[in-house]
């Protein structure tokens, strides 16, 4: 049974929830209403999730907003990639919100917190379903502005305030650059509908590279591509842990999604593969190396997010390179792209798991220093065990999820080594070296967390169940990905075909 639901429907519950929470905030000031707010936000997210699940059979679907038709009007499109990212986003946000109840229980202004989380989710979903660049930009700003506010949520502390301000400035500059790029595209193409840009741009020649660079730069700030990444290691650790989980797990994926969508669909006739490979290589390498300098567990994870974004970007660039330079092996390009998309899932699950479980540890132990958290898994077996699973998955240890996505990125590159393409060979070497480095520091952290003598006092124990359960669910999902491989891989391959298929 296919129910024909309008594409905007999943966006409505979080928006409505945010409005309700804000509108009623003056009525229920007492702290005890925290549970009500929590339930309202959780319910709106679950409603959104339900709509999404119901809509899965009807993809691809599109919706024309307002009275104007193309090229001027707004449109929403829900294709396989959008649906996959929306589902991931709502699932991870729901778990983070569920985790927030006890984590944030001593904070003031929880109505703002939850409504910002809902707005962030709505913005994220909007970005994923936008069919034209104007709509995308509107939702983009919704997402970014709620992110700034969430990073600086604990405004009485200096660190979040500074980090939030930095994020605000950097990201706004990025948004403006992207906006400028979008305006250039409109100027050249006369349309903002992403699927329509390609045709109009194909004859534009060199001029088209300027908006391309601006899109990569502008969205690249949010996607934390080196050298636009500098805000992330400050902002992600400064935010409350559930927010860090959403930011690192999802929001930066919004950036990479926007880049992939605009480039692969709109700039299909332009060559951007090698710059993406170079940026990806730089992002991976610098992100991975900077991890070693970190003493703070959340900064550790933040830099590893940078590195993982590099891998995804690199896989996209490699896929584009294979499709462009080796058309006979286009199948391998789809696998590489499917690896990138799969890695988005693995990193979303793994990194939000890591931030949430580290949140539990910080909540219980009151410190973010890795040194002081050594051996804490002895005191917190559930959270610590879940964290170990997340670390091993992102380390690419078989048979966990991260192994398969890295394999899907590496395998096509390895298969094309005999072709003698220097860009792909270099990409292979960089990905392999970085995977080894990453495996090294993730397992090292897992060892420190799990096997060192406990550095925290005896009194430190497991947090409340509402914080343990989401973490455990995420760790089960990290393992479950492996069992779902036979179903997931065809899906990812179909997504990557539809993303790259316009060529």
């Amino acid at each position: 049974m296919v129910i024909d639901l309008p594409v905007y429907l999943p966006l409505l519950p979080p928006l409505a929830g945010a409005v309700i929470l804000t509108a009623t905030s003056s009525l229920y000031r007492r702290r005890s209403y925290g549970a009500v707010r929590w339930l309202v936000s959780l319910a709106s997210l679950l409603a959104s999730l339900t709509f999404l699940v119901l809509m899965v059979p009807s993809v691809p679907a599109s919706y024309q907003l307002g009275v104007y038709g193309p090229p001027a009007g707004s449109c929403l499109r829900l294709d396989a990639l959008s649906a996959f990212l929306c589902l991931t986003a709502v699932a991870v946000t729901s778990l983070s919100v569920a985790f927030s109840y006890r984590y944030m229980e001593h904070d003031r202004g929880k109505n703002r917190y939850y409504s910002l989380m809902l707005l962030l989710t709505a913005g994220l979903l909007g970005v994923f379903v936008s069919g034209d660049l104007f709509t995308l930009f509107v939702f983009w700003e919704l997402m970014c502005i709620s992110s700034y506010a969430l990073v600086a949520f604990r405004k009485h502390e200096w660190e979040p305030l500074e980090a939030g301000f930095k994020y605000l400035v950097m990201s706004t500059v990025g948004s403006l650059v992207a906006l400028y790029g979008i305006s250039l595209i409109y100027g050249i193409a006369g349309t903002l509908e992403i699927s329509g840009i390609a045709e109009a741009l194909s004859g534009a020649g060199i001029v088209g590279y300027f908006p391309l660079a601006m899109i990569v730069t502008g969205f690249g700030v949010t996607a934390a591509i080196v050298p636009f990444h500098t805000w992330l290691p400050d902002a992600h650790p400064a935010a409350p842990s559930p927010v860090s989980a959403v930011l690192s797990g999802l929001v930066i994926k919004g950036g990479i999604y926007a880049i992939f969508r605009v480039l692969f669909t709109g700039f299909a006739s332009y060559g951007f593969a090698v710059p993406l490979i170079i940026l990806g290589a730089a992002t991976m390498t610098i992100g991975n190396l900077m991890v070693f300098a970190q003493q703070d567990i959340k900064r550790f994870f933040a830099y590893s997010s940078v590195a993982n974004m590099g891998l995804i970007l690199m896989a996209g660039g490699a896929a584009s390179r294979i499709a462009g330079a080796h058309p006979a092996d286009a199948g391998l390009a789809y696998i590489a792209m499917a690896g990138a998309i799969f890695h988005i899932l693995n990193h979303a699950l793994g990194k939000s798991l890591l931030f949430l479980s580290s949140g539990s540890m910080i909540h219980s132990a009151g410190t973010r220093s890795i040194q002081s958290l050594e051996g804490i898994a002895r005191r917190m077996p559930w959270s610590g065990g879940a964290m170990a699973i997340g670390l091993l998955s992102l380390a690419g240890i078989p048979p966990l999820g991260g192994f398969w996505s890295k394999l899907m990125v590496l395998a096509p590159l390895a298969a094309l080594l005999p072709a003698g393409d220097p860009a792909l060979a270099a990409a292979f070497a960089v990905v392999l070296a970085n995977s080894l480095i990453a495996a090294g520091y993730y397992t090292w952290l897992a060892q420190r967390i799990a096997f060192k003598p406990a550095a925290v006092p005896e009194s430190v124990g497991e947090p409340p169940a509402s914080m343990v359960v989401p973490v455990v669910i995420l760790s089960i999902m990290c393992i479950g990905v492996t069992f779902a491989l036979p179903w997931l891989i065809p899906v990812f391959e179909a997504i990557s075909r539809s993303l790259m298929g316009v060529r």
Partner: protein
Amino acid sequence: MAVFSGDWIGLAPAWLCWLVPFAGALIVLALGKISRKAMESIGAASVAASAALALVMATWIPGADFPIRLTAPWVELAGSSGDLPFPAIAFGILVDPVSIILANVVAAVGALIMVYSIRYMGEEPSTTRFWFLMDAFVGSMLFLVMSDNLVQMLFGWEGVGLCSYALIGYWYRDSKDPKSWLTTWVGEGNESYPPSHAGMKAFLMTRFGDVLMIAGVILLALSTGSFSFLEIAGRVGSGGSHPLLLPASVLILFGAIGKSAQLPLMEWLPDAMTGPAPVSALIHAATMVKAGVYLVARVFPIFYIAAAADPGLIRFFEIAAWVGAATAFVSATQAAVSTELKKVLAYSTVSQIGYMMLAMGVAGTMAEFYIGYAGGIFHLMSHAVFKAALFLAAGAVIHATGSRFMHHMGGLRKRMPLTFLGVLIPSLSLMGVPILFSGFWSKDMILEAVLESGNLPLLAVSLATVSITCFYTVRMVGKVFFGSPSAPAAAAVNGGGADGHHAGDPSPLMSLPVLALSAATIAMGALGVYEREWLARLLGGYIGSLVGVHGEIHLGDPAAQIMVSGASLAFIVIGAVPAYLIYVRGMRIPTWRPLRSIGSFFANRWYINRAYYALFVYPVFRLGGWIADRVEEGALRSAERSAQSSLLWIVGRLKKTHTGGLNENLIAALAGMILLVAMLLLVVVP
């Protein structure tokens, strides 16, 4: 008299007999924490039950049409049907006279030993492990015996090896205090080994043979297209000889050599005496070490048929015969100088298994194979009974004196009369004293086979070994039971020591199994003349039907029999009399220098053990130490350090670019965009 139907239900004893001890092992594990008595009862009862099942199988012998084989599909490889040369593996049981005899020996002797163990192990802590492993051992051994193919047999084969390893190292704490050293260690000087070391040694040495054996099994399967004993035997005769058969046979023989502790893999068994006495009796005398002989008996028809087609395969039997004879001689000389009671028995076990191997070997070289074949099986049976009795009695003696050294014993004849009887009767059987003792009949049958085969050097070696056997047996009995009591032993026996309650004969539960086994020895000896004929006809007829030799079974001419009996009697006297004079009568003989150096050569185990350690053990330790020092601590560690420091150097430099200043970050972002544009225009566009 076939009172059974030939299906899985009708043949239930053939698979229940190993299933019951396995189940017993699991129940023992469960009962260990609940009730010691219940655990011991179940442990012993499960083996007794399988002895009863084995006895049921024995009643099939007169009437059934052997071989009876039942199979079920087990492992079928994709290419089994013909693409690959690798055959399918069936799960099957093979019921024939050989497996029935072996099952009866294993289960019946095992049951008596288990009864003995109840009291013997009574004071030990953590006996759950003992009972579990003993039951698992009996299960594995019977599984091995009843297997119809080589792969399935290997499972039992490795199972018994594992239990053997764990039971040799039963006292795995390797306690060095004098009391434990005197009872649980083995050897003196720099050939003294703790239990865990002995267990590992046994495991590794037998594993060496097993690896070769597995290669042989694979070669045999590749060359004949089956793993099943009967199928291989059926195929090997047709279609000429296969070039892989000889290497396969020799490799399989190595498995037997390892398990049965023959040269060159005999060194593990003497050191396996660190295990408790019931373990030595059951595993390292009566049953497991016979698995090698059993394996040769199992593959005997295969290579006998193959040798008819290709005389080159006679070499397999010649090698087996010479290995057996050489082992019999070498280990008998070592037994003659050994200072430890159980080690004398261990060397003697090795030596007696050498006789069995010799019998199987010479059987393959002649047309009247049944004399040798039946002789080997007969000696296997009689040796299982009398050696088990000897080990159990030795366990009682060591228990009483608190020492494994014979010079701590002496004069025990009066104090432990029942134990003395339980040593004397099996000893006479071991020596092969005529008429009343089973060892006489079985050993003479082997000697007869050697004579019939016409291989005089082999006959000479085996007759010389008879002398040495008698020498060390009488020496052992003399040193332990005659002469004057030596100090520590006297203290214990006179009730002066802390272990005063050990003085004298052990409790009936320990004495009875010893006496039962001694009585069985005499019974088998008294019926020996019928027994040898029965065995020759049974096995000769059965194996003859497999290998296609259907002739009259005649047990050699009387002249040869009398010659062999006379010769062996003479050699018994040659060996026994000097030992009697020296060790029983206490006659002092002048020490003669060459004799002493020969003795020390024997006592040093012919330097074989030392050579193995020097060649294989110490070099590996040295190599390990070198790798630890130079490679791990040296090269790898320094590479690790330099990788670490260079990474940290890079990270340190990189960190400086991450100032965190907003201005610089924005400038970097801007520069990045310009670079990106430049990259697009300069790299992509051209």
